[in-house]
């Protein structure tokens, strides 16, 4: 009882602003961010200093401070290297194909799913198509390698139905490219529809009611209300994807490729791994990786600017 009255007294006598200040504890907020700040400093900012190696001939015995500086030697070598041009082209080819298909297919899928009236069915379809997104490329590669083998189910099916010879899906360059793009779209199209479904759910139902009163059929409603409502979010997805044109999905390619199809299948990231960690050419690999990061950084900044300009998108 005594404590209670005392508290009441302080509340009445202290100006409200002061109480607020006392309890808001701004120093505590700094304390709460501290673990994240430290972790990011150690595991993100310290490795950034490692890009120095791109301008050195790094020797593990001499360390980063003692290794000799060589200027742009590794970059010159990189641009004179025909193979580097090939892998840059491969990377762009994979990434662009995936970006385009991963925009169009989820868009169409969301429109079709929107026409399903039975909510239970709609939810079951959603549950199933999201699932592959959560499986790892190691798991899926294991499955794909088994299914696409010469004696695998796909080749059995093809030879039984069409009577043609088995296809080397993972051993022939052109088929490898097809497999990479198709399997990525298969894995991600469901998950990529989430954002479109959210936009669909946000459309004002009054628009459809008004359209019906005006005598618009389902096709007219789709072309005049649904599709225009999805365009802004599609623009955001497309522009943000621009920042990823040098990311062709390391995990997928690394788990499915083999020396047989390096020419058509190797991408910048897998090349950096082989040259760097396997062959020990730390400086050259870092130079390649720095080139990639630099271009990506510029593209990300541009894409965020565009997304903000055209659709008012901000990340926070």
């Amino acid at each position, binding site marked *: 009882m005594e404590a209670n009255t005392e508290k009441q007294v302080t509340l009445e006598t202290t100006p409200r602003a002061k109480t607020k200040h006392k309890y808001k504890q701004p120093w505590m907020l*700094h304390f709460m961010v501290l*673990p994240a700040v430290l972790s990011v400093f150690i595991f993100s900012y310290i490795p950034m200093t*490692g890009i120095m190696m791109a301008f050195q001939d790094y020797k593990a015995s001499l360390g980063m401070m003692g290794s000799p500086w060589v200027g742009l030697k590794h970059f010159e070598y990189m641009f004179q290297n025909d193979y580097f041009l090939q892998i840059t082209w491969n990377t762009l080819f994979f990434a662009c194909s995936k970006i385009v298909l991963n925009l169009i297919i989820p868009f169409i899928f969301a429109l079709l799913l929107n026409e399903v009236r039975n909510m239970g069915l709609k939810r079951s*379809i959603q549950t199933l198509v999201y699932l592959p997104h959560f499986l790892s490329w190691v*798991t899926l590669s294991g499955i794909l390698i088994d299914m696409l*083998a010469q004696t695998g*189910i796909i080749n059995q099916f093809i030879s039984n139905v069409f009577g043609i010879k088995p296809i080397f899906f993972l051993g022939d360059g052109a088929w490898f490219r097809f497999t990479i793009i198709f399997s990525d779209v298969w894995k991600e199209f469901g998950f990529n529809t989430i954002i479109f479904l959210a*936009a669909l759910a946000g459309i004002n139902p009054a628009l459809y009611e008004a359209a019906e009163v005006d005598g618009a059929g389902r096709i007219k409603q789709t072309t005049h209300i649904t599709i225009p409502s999805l365009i802004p979010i599609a623009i955001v997805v497309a522009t943000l994807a621009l920042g990823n044109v040098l990311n062709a999905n390391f995990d997928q390619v690394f788990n499915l490729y083999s020396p047989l199809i390096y020419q058509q299948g190797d991408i910048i990231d897998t090349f950096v791994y082989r040259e760097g960690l396997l062959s020990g050419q730390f400086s050259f690999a*870092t130079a390649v990786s720095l080139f990639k*990061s630099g271009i990506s950084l510029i593209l990300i900044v541009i894409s965020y600017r565009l997304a903000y300009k055209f659709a008012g998108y901000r990340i926070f």
Partner: protein
Amino acid sequence: MHHKTLPYRIFSIFNNVFLILLSILCLLPLYHLLMVSMSASAPANAGLVTFWPIGFTLEAYAKTFNNSNFLTSLWVSTQRTILGTALAMLVSTLAAYALSKDSHIFRARNVYLWYFVVTMLFAGGLIPSYLLILKLGLMNTLWALILPGTVGVYNVILLLNFFRTVPKDLEEAAFIDGAGQLRTFFMIYLPISLPAIATVSLFIMVGHWNSYFDGIIYMKDAEKLPLASFMQTIIVQKDMTKLDPQMVANMSQRTISASQIFIGALPILLVYPFLQRYFVKGIVIGAVKE
């Protein structure tokens, strides 16, 4: 009205059938794998198994669970996923809570935000990160797999966008009742943000369970490989040099590979349905804003 017209009904039927087939297509590879894993070795190796097991047997599972390499990897992955998710969630939610405050209350907010966002735009890359782990002496320890992933900046942004939707009145009331920032965070924000917490936890858990690359480059001993790295080496890369030669002999069979892949994917198949109802909501709140 429109859904009563005949052409729309016909379209509807075709549309439903098409979408059902499409969704089954997403499950089929996994289902086929399960059937292979439960078949006898000979028909499986000959590629005869399609959609039902031939010569049903659980022998492959028995062999998989008798394989000590597989079991230790399963244990490494379990530890990594539990510890890693708990640590990442603690650090990320604390940071996201502080950063969700308005800048007139928490003046340094924008400075911190840029400090984090820069790391989304630019990274040191593979080689410097590898050398860092080497220099820190984390090579061949569980911490090499856990510590670098503690702060996912995208996750922090998702959480902070969610925390910003919590009504300010609740926080005001807590402060007036004498709660400090920590207490407000644990007693008000965490319980109210369950959908976002569940979403981000699912992402981090799946991320830890599925990571294989860090295990391959940082772990030198076979008994320290997490399950995904173990499977990558034996099933995908077919590199058995790290493993016990006696084990290798009976691991190359198709049914055993299939059973291992299936068991590896099982925890995700089990967790996913429970968290799915949260994550759609969580992602949408993180991604689409007014």
